[in-house]
């Protein structure tokens, strides 16, 4: 009959396993195994995957995914926790996002929230995140926090102060001799916010507004609107439009004409930043002065920018999304960089501490240094105003070279002078 006896100085099987486990964990291989078992940091968001904003939404998400993959390849954050994205399609609709974010918070119990791309889907979730005291990393929405006043909101977009967008465009127009202004804006949140600031800046400068009209979503034909605008004989034409409309407006301008007195045309046309739209519009773009966020000029490359676009270009082809990806994708990546720097500095996911760190420091990103003002927008605007030049039809690759969109603003990034009037610049 055998009997298990623990001899003095001998070691039990359980103790042996525990000791071996601890030893293994102390080795590099063991450390990796332990990290793999740690829970991931879950970042929740909705993103337009279908609907009118899907083109931008998909590019933005790819930027965030590239950041996730880069961070995870380096071992994650907080001592080995991998990044996991929890993403839902909001169908570009403002009515979808409140329910999605409630689910992300209460059911999925994500650690951090990123906002969806664009103003319209973001606006309805602002009161909720403020009420719950959650940090929200904004994604290219415009002035959604101006009335809410949430102190844990940080916008990745380079907008800066609310009026800087209109100010830079009107500066260019007035320097070219513009003495009156026309405003045409989509009847939607983002465009109306742009229009509002443009009206305020024009009023401050005593610039007469000779045409001011909003057009509804789903407008099919812009010929008659452009005809009415032309009849008002403005010098500066400020357009705040969404992607489906921008193409229609430019086509109508090309057919109807806009008048010889117009010095600058454009300003806030969403869509002319996307590769497919630019390729489709081709030479119709020439002369338009429009906002942008990133362009392939020497001054716009920072640490990691080139590597990012190398990865993006490859993955965008597979994902059938904007092959250029200048407008949103690098800023999606930058959102991740911002939150990663905050987590590394704070050493936890405590949202108030993360927000304090983001608010009080300047952060290095692939789109340049970012510092926030108290309202969560950039301290200084980094929105570009650029004029399309020498664009030919049906050629996507031309937009990868410098000189196709000459930067007129800001001064430190300027790459050329305005060609005016608009009709001359179109030739």
């Amino acid at each position, binding site marked *: 009959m055998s009997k298990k006896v623990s001899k003095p100085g001998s070691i039990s099987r359980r103790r042996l396993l525990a000791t071996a486990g601890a030893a293994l964990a102390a080795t590099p291989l063991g450390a990796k195994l332990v990290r793999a078992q740690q829970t991931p940091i879950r970042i929740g968001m909705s993103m337009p*995957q*279908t*609907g*009118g904003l*899907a*083109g931008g939404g*998909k590019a933005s998400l790819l930027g965030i995914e590239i950041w996730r993959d880069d961070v995870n390849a380096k071992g994650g954050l907080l001592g080995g926790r991998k990044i996991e994205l929890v993403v839902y399609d909001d169908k*570009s609709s403002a009515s979808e996002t409140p329910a999605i974010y409630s689910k992300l918070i209460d059911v999925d119990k994500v650690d951090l929230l990123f906002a969806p791309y664009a103003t319209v889907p973001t606006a309805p979730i602002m009161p909720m995140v403020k009420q719950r005291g959650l940090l929200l990393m904004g994604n290219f929405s415009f002035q959604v926090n101006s009335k809410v006043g949430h102190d844990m909101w940080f916008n990745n977009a380079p907008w800066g102060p609310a009026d800087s967008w209109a100010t830079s465009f009107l500066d260019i127009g007035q320097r070219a001799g513009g003495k009156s202004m026309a405003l045409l804006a989509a*009847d939607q949140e983002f465009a109306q916010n742009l229009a509002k600031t443009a009206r305020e800046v024009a009023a401050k400068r005593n610039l007469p507004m000779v045409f001011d*009209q*909003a*057009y*509804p979503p*789903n*407008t*099919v*034909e812009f*010929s*008659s*609107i452009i*005809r*009415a605008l032309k*009849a008002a004989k403005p010098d500066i034409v400020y357009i705040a439009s969404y*992607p*489906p409309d921008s*193409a*229609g407006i430019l*086509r*109508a301008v*090309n*057919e*109807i*004409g806009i008048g010889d007195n117009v010095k600058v045309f454009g300003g806030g046309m969403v*869509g002319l930043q*996307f*590769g*497919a*739209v630019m390729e*489709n519009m081709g030479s*119709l773009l020439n002369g338009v002065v429009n906002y942008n966020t990133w362009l392939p000029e020497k001054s716009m490359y920072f640490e990691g920018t080139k590597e990012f676009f190398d990865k993006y270009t490859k993955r965008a082809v597979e994902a*059938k*999304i*904007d092959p250029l990806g200048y407008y949103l994708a690098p800023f999606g990546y930058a959102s991740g960089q911002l939150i990663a720097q905050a987590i590394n500095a704070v050493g936890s996911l405590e949202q108030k501490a993360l927000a304090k760190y983001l608010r009080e420091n300047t952060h290095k990103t692939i789109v340049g240094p970012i510092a926030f003002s108290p309202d969560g927008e950039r301290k200084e605007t980094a929105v570009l105003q650029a004029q399309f030049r020498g664009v030919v*039809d*049906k050629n996507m690759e031309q937009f990868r070279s410098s000189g196709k969109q000459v930067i007129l603003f800001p001064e430190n990034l300027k790459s050329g002078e305005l060609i005016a009037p608009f009709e001359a610049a179109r030739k």
Partner: protein
Amino acid sequence: MFSFDLLLDAVVIGVLLGCFYGAVSLGLSVSFGLLDVPHVAHPAFLVLASYAVYFLNEHYAVDPLVAGLLITPVFFLLGLVAYRLYYETFEKRGSDAAVRGIAFFFGVAFIIEVLIILQFGVDQRSVTADYIGRAWRLGDIRIPYRLLVAFAVATALTVLLTLYLSRTFMGRAIRAVAQDQEALRLMGANPIKIKQWAFGIATAVLGIAGALLIIVAPVDPTLDRAYIGRTFCVVVMAGLGSMGGTLVAAIILGVAETIVLTMFGASWAPAISFAMLLGVLAVRPQGLFGRRS
């Protein structure tokens, strides 16, 4: 400030825009107006046709209008299949077929939208042709050629469909099935086959209409949602089943929309179609050109 030039311009552009609305509504005038099929996927088929035209134009440099003609037989077959599926799964099963049919066609519309996204992505697509992006000068008025194309095609389609429905045996049979299905059955004809054929015609028309859609403006996979209200409004306002009436109602709508856009402010334009529809239905419940039943 009132300007006669602007008003004249608005009327001219409105007539042309109305013709475009008419062209994209004619198929629905057959499927919904004559056959009573709640075809809410009509605009989705329209967008599908636009993408087919885009594919032929982009990869084989086929003129968009020729591409529209080339895909017409394919869309005819697609219509035959879609109706047979709808009939077998919904229509023959009872009195609430119409309500459940709406769910069926909404489902079809979503499937088409997703298929387009998977194949072409979510970006806008457009076509190139000599008549796109240029305008015809008529005094002070400049008329985009693409709208003139829409005018010509819509007029031709209306005339052809009207002749087909009034002069051919099959066309008369389609009108008969719209009026009294049982009577047609007593005459020895199979109303289901006639309805299937008519649905095929309605879908085939979308081949050309889809070409017009992408000629007039760039398209994206979700554009169908913008056209559900407009096309149903045109068909109901015209009086169900009237081809000429569809074109006239569409022109009235186009002119009203454009005048409001130009003279009174664009924000009011979306309300125009439905305000006019309510007004017409209040005065003439059978529509502008419909017969009192």
